[in-house]
């Protein structure tokens, strides 16, 4: 068993936070090594160090027996390190081959490159047409562009940062088959994730980070998911419990909701229809970019739809704006925390007034009663355990998990009739995620109707009563969650139809 990359005592501090503290571990040649940890555990800083984007304060790395200290990504690539980022850096208006060429030092002629792309994609079971425009590709296909871009360099270490967050279960299987084949050929893979089952299925070694330090080296194949989770979080996690209650009358009815896309590469909503009953949680699953943002904007009132498409308790709200919908009891929580659900540079009290002004009676003759906004902010901070010095702090100063608790708490505490949230626990640490899911279930237990739009299928299976899939702006029929399997969900999401696994 030869070591490809050895990390020794890597330390990197930023003002106020030590991102990596004396991190040491080794990656075996041909191994699939998992880097496991919550948001803020220091995973990103560590891989950026390996990729030459961050210079460590102290510590050293050894690659294939030689000292390795890349000053920039180009040096890391030359040494055989390639990385697929969580957020793609692709030009939507260009073709696949053109995008790949842009990332190369000396790109060959486009026709030769296209042939190479086709060859690599067939070898590794990643079907991809080099002539297609990236803007027309699904998220899974875009990821393949990034992977192929890396594979063309013949890397000895491939770093994958949260690769499955944008994939359907079937696409995940295809990706895993590719990664296993690469590993069998001797390429090492450093796999970053917080999805434990995936790591147990794929990886042969795992390093767990918490608070910037290595807290464990385990063999994920023989360690249970529960144990991995506990070591990652540092405490025991309790699964959210639904408060039993019978679904009541239909509260929100959406019918034939169609909207054109906002931008050229947006997704149009096509005759979306669903109903939610009081006390029920409806889960809307789907891969990123299939109309989630558009659906939320149509429901929140940021975009208006045709008469009769959205009714709450029998009242037509489709032509009403956000304020009137809130007054009627329809509340929403968008995916993007900073710049959509909250104003980054405004205080928490001002952000409490952003959506709470009407229902929390902060208005007197058009004047804002700031005292009430401040006390509402305090109420949210206390009820949702938001870690902050006070309601005068700017929203952007909060960590992702704390701000998410604040913006979800702001809607929950307004006692909505219907609450619609998009990606309520995206990028949030496990404890905060559990608290948010529990709050949603409690709200349903009090008789509110809840709609959770999420790309995290485990989350939807855990908290929703019924499941529908959003694919290309269309909604599937609903299925009781109890009868669902991952495979069935994958078929409902429909992302896998045109991409069988090539013969691996």
């Amino acid at each position, binding site marked *: 068993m030869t070591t490809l990359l050895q990390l020794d005592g890597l330390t990197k501090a*930023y*003002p106020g936070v030590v991102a990596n503290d004396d991190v040491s571990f080794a990656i075996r040649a041909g191994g699939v090594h998992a880097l496991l940890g919550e948001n803020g555990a220091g995973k990103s800083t560590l891989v950026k160090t390996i990729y030459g984007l*961050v*210079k460590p*304060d102290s510590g050293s790395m050894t690659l294939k027996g030689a000292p390795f200290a890349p000053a920039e990504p180009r040096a890391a690539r030359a040494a055989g390190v390639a990385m697929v980022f969580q957020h793609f850096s692709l030009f939507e208006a260009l073709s696949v081959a053109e995008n790949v060429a842009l990332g190369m030092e000396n790109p060959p002629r486009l026709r030769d490159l296209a042939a190479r792309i086709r060859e690599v994609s067939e070898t590794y079971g990643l079907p991809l047409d080099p002539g297609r425009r990236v803007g027309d590709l699904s998220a899974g296909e875009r990821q393949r562009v990034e992977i192929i871009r890396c594979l063309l360099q013949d890397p000895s270490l491939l770093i994958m940062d949260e690769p499955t967050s944008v994939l359907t279960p079937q696409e995940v299987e295809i990706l895993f088959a590719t990664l296993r084949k690469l590993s069998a050929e001797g390429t090492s893979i450093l796999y970053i994730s917080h999805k434990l089952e995936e790591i147990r299925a794929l990886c042969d070694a795992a390093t767990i980070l918490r608070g910037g330090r290595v807290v464990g080296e385990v063999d994920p194949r023989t360690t249970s998911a529960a144990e991995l989770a506990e070591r990652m979080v540092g405490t025991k996690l309790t699964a959210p419990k639904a408060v039993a209650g019978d679904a009541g009358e239909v509260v929100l009815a959406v019918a034939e909701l169609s909207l054109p896309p906002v931008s050229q590469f947006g997704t149009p909503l096509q005759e979306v229809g669903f109903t939610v009953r009081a006390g029920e949680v409806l889960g809307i699953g789907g891969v990123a970019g299939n109309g989630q943002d558009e659906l939320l904007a149509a429901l*929140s*009132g*940021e975009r208006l739809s045709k008469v009769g498409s959205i009714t709450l308790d029998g009242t037509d709200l489709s032509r009403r*704006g*956000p*304020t009137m919908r*809130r007054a009627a009891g329809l509340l*929403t929580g*968008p995916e*993007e925390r900073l*710049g*959509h*659900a*909250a*104003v*980054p*540079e*405004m205080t928490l009290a*001002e952000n409490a*007034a*952003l*959506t709470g*002004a009407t229902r929390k009676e902060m*208005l007197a003759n*058009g*004047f*804002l009663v*700031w005292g009430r906004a401040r006390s509402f902010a305090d109420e949210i901070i206390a009820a949702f355990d938001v870690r902050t010095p006070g309601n005068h*702090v*700017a929203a*952007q*100063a909060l960590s992702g998990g704390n701000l998410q608790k604040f913006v979800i708490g702001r809607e929950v505490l307004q006692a909505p009739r219907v609450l619609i949230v998009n990606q309520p626990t995206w990028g949030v640490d496990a404890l905060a995620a559990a608290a948010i899911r529990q709050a949603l279930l409690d709200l349903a237990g009090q008789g509110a109707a809840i709609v959770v739009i999420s790309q995290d299928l485990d989350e939807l299976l855990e908290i929703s009563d019924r499941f529908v899939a959003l694919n290309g702006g269309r909604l599937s029929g609903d299925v009781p969650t109890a009868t669902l399997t991952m495979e069935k969900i994958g078929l409902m999401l429909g992302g896998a139809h045109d991409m069988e696994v090539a013969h691996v």
Partner: protein
Amino acid sequence: MIHLERRPTPSRAWGAASPLLAVALTMVAGGLMFAALGKDPLEALRTIFWDPVLGEFAWYFRGQILVKAGPLILIAVGLALGFRAGVWNIGAEGQYIVGAICGAAAGLVFYPTDSVRIFPFMVVFGAFGGIAWAMIPALLKVRLGTNEILVSLMLVYVAENLLASAAVNWLRNPDAVGFPGSRNLARWDASANLELIEGTGIHWGVVAALIAVIFAHVMLTRHLMGFQVRLAGASPRAARFGGVNTGRLIVLCLGFSGMLAGMAGLFEVTGPAGQISIDFASGYGFTAIIVAFLGRLNPLGIVAAGLLMALTYVGGEAASANLGLPSAAISAFQGMLLFFLLAVDVLTNFRVRVGKGVAA
């Protein structure tokens, strides 16, 4: 090596101190410029900043300062409200001109009647003229998505031509044998906007500026509309999510700034300027943009900024008359003020670190 580090929360202390630092830096750099022009820098700075307020002829200059500061503050308050919402009205100069023409024309219809109702009537029409001129960029933006910066700026030049035609043609004083320019409104009792308190320079425009400042301050800090203005400027998407009607806000902001600019024009044409003439446009509408930023887009800050800017005008004129400084040097001096203000602004949002910086 020096590098900048973003502050998690903007510094309040620097937010207040940076205008003062900018003024200090302007004095240093301006002094160097005056020295390079062969003048005594201390004497030049004293002529600009000290003499008009506390010097021998201050009794004359002090009134002049308020006469200049009044329209600057009035216009800047309106602009600041729009700038806070991300609505960039660059054409206040045009709204100022059209307001003056409309108000003057509305009054002259009644010439030579004498009635106390004529002046308020003219003010209303001045406001209306400013609003109408500002509605062109507003409606084009809301309906067709045009850029309000370009449209409002271009309309300044249209307004200047309108002014020329009014002065030499349809508003020309019929009794002034061939001379261009309207009747003198400051000498017609019904329309004269005279000093309210002898020797202070306070006319109705200064009073209106004060009212506008208080109104804008209360609105921005206490009223839902002001909150929506700040939301739209800080984060347009969050504002829409919060229920802000963006189109209505654009119309409102441009309308309000147009109204104040139009009123400023009317107060000017009935008082200090006296008549509609070809050179009536004095650049107040453009200088007010500087005043708005110098005052941190804050109504109370704008009062201080307007007074300071008026001081550089009055003092600058004195300096060019007494010391023979070229008027371009005075303009450069005012430009430095804005330049340094924007430069030190960095300190509000960033912290400067000296030492070895590691690019992250």
